């Protein structure tokens, strides 16, 4: 007997996953947004339930889906496998396709535009400008970016410029990786990129800096799917030649790696062999190092790091569904103790929490995490996502770093230079 498999069964499995919803409301009890605001009725309602009323040729039945932060907690807790977050993201995109994208969301979606304008030797001026209360108030009134929302400071140099001009270029080795730095590392936190490169090189990798654009996640989460697709296709085009040679893509921004792996292909319905190949060969940095360790290739000759630090696995990392690779590696560092946060989300969810109408929601969502970090008494918190780090610092006053910086320290690698 033969069975007819629909040609686009991946698409069908997403769209039809709503039929697996048994209305148990587990997602509603886990949703951090509906817990703090009445504006979002919960994942079940705007996801599988409202989806029955959405047709390509009809107006979407309910605008409240825009209050979904896209943290994907609903997907993880769903016992029947409904792709709730994807349904919500696509519903938002349908609204954007009909009503257009606001100037604010267009700006927030293009983090690369902003970064390119700001990250330069003139960054201190731009930063002063952006931290000015009056300007922030005007920005809030005119554009809709919350005046108190955390915005990162531009770097005086980009990661790419540092990499190209570094005095000790990466040694040519037999084992190579492509480093996907993402916009945040390039324009705001080039130091993180340097640290990641040094950790990879320390483990014997030649690090390649491929051409790359924004991963497109800010556009995806603002519903601008057509624009996001251009970025994703560009990235796939740039990364594919390496992947075809068996060179993996490794990133430190867990939201960028998630986008390359799954968010862009799934949300945009792109399932070509090329796109799949890039997705299957992209790794979050600690996920990659954990695999290296499983092969017995990771240097585990760690120096003691006598610290007890709060660690928040961000929602984008949880969405990889790979457990806690940073904990798996760092628990081998003598003297180090990481306190894992169980808060589902810090509230920023990429660009969600910087929007005027959502800032308070984001802060309420993050309240539990802020409390956890502050009660730890530590002056340093760890988190794998840049926007979450900024939000944690904003909500607590505690410095936040990527956990790779601790591994860097455990290897006894050079303390951060001034860069440039």
């Amino acid at each position: 007997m033969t069975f007819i498999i629909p040609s686009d069964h991946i698409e069908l499995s997403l769209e039809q996953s709503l039929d697996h919803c048994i209305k148990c409301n587990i997602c509603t009890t886990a949703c951090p947004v509906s817990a703090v605001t009445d504006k979002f009725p919960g994942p079940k309602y705007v996801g599988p339930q409202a989806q029955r009323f959405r047709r390509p040729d009809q107006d979407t039945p309910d605008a409240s889906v825009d209050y979904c932060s896209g943290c994907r907690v609903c997907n993880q807790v769903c016992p029947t496998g409904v792709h709730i977050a994807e349904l919500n993201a696509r519903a938002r995109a349908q609204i954007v396709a009909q009503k257009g994208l606001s100037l604010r969301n267009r700006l927030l979606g293009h983090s690369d535009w902003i970064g390119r304008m700001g990250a330069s030797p003139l960054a201190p001026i731009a930063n002063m400008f952006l931290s000015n209360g009056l300007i922030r108030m005007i920005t809030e009134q005119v554009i809709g970016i919350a005046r108190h929302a955390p915005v990162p400071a531009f770097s005086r140099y980009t990661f790419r410029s540092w990499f190209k001009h570094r005095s000790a270029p990466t040694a040519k080795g037999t084992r190579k990786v492509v480093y996907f730095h993402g916009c945040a590392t390039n324009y705001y936190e080039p130091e993180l990129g340097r640290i990641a490169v040094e950790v990879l090189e320390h483990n014997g990798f030649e690090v390649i800096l491929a051409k790359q654009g924004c991963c497109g996640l800010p556009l995806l989460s603002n519903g601008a799917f057509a624009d996001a697709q251009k970025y994703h296709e560009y990235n796939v085009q740039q990364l594919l030649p390496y992947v075809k040679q068996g060179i993996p893509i490794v990133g430190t921004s867990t939201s960028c790696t998630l986008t390359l792996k799954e968010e862009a292909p799934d949300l945009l319905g792109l399932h070509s062999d090329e796109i799949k190949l890039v997705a299957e060969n992209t790794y979050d940095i600690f996920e990659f190092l954990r695999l290296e360790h499983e092969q017995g290739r990771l240097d585990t000759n760690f120096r003691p790091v006598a610290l007890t630090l709060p660690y928040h696995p961000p929602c984008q990392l949880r969405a990889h569904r790979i457990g806690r690779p940073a904990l798996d590696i760092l628990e081998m560092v003598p003297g180090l103790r990481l306190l894992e946060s169980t808060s589902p989300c810090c509230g920023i969810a990429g660009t969600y929490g910087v929007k005027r109408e959502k800032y308070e929601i984001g802060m309420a969502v993050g309240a539990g995490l802020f409390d956890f970090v502050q009660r730890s008494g530590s002056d340093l918190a760890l988190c794998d996502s840049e926007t979450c780090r900024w939000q944690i610092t904003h909500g607590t006053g505690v410095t936040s770093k990527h956990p790779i910086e601790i591994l860097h320290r455990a290897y006894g690698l050079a303390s951060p230079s001034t860069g440039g």
Partner: protein
Amino acid sequence: MTSRMIVIGAGLSGLMSALALAEAGLRPLLLAKGYGTTYWTGGTIDLLASRRYPNMPLHTALTHLIVAQPEHPYARMELDGIAAAVDRFRTLTKAAGYPYVGGLERNVVLPTALGALRPTALLPATMAAGDVRLGGEILIAGFHELRDFFPPMAAANLQAQHIPARGVYLTLPDGYQRHDYSPRSFALWFEQPNFRQAIGQQLRTLRGTATRIGLPAVLGLRDPLGVVNDLQQISGAQIFEIPTLPPSVPGMRLMNIFHQAITVAGGRIQIGSEVRRGLGAEGVLTHIFSEAAAREQRHHVAACVLATGGIAGGGISTDFRGTVHETALNLPLHAPESRQAWFASRFLHTEGHPIFSAGVPTDDQFRPLDSTGHVVYANVMVAGSALLAGDPVEDRAVSGLALTTGWHVGTLLATSLPAQLAT
């Protein structure tokens, strides 16, 4: 970090197994597709209430079953094994400030949200005053805003069973109106003293001659006993919780308690990671693969507890050809041969539905067996509703089997493991 103790499933059985392994210092990893059936069920532990063993103490009924069905999981644990699991669970919940009452002596009969009567062996102390033997008039109180809980209907059904009862609706205090309501909304509100005060005052006014008041089981997440005590003081009546339709607040409390206990003891819980397949060699499971973004996550297995549930929980599934299969490791099953044999002729048939008897046959070590009676994987043990165990639905033993086999298998695995596997 080479190979690891893995528990598959986040229902009661998986949580109990993971707790046993964590407390033995084996740092288990619990993998689950989503939150387990704790969120779907009322939070009571039903050990056995079979119509085959009426009118006798619970431990006598269990002993009868153990004699009559020597291959039943209860028979393999014996009464001592059942008691050990119950003890650990009671200690755990008590330490978390959410004590359970009851045990192996007898079943307690509690009113349901429909006003039906349901026997159970272990119940949260917050439900204890619902025991129908206590006598006196019962007031059932609910909220129009909390769906699927109808006090007048529950009271009418209790009346029909000669239990004096009245049903009333409470009014949400000002400031608590929302577009929509869930059991969680109410649970969070009951943690606020002002809300409790307002509701307690209404209960006092509406109480009349009632000595006990039944409320939907939404009386807070963190300190439900404190909420009950408060409401008792204000209303002047005994307060008890009645389980609601899902999502179950008592189930959420249990999940929180287990999550905390397992992680503190060194275990890890990974939700959203459905185990899709396993890989073994020479009768030993070596790897399992869980669903993840872009590619499967591969786990190296030292030993594994399969606690994925039965037909209802998703551990056993069917396809359109009528095949019944175990979803995580594709273990051999005992199940009805054809689709025609799945169901009895009537929905509420007294003999139950054959499909609910589907399960993985195991040896007395709870290791899975193939059709020839050989152990499939020597380092895998099965717990909970995935087990072949007669008809747990008809026996009213689903949660009891989950709890006891989960603990039993976890401790069995911890003690039977070669020492070199312990990290």
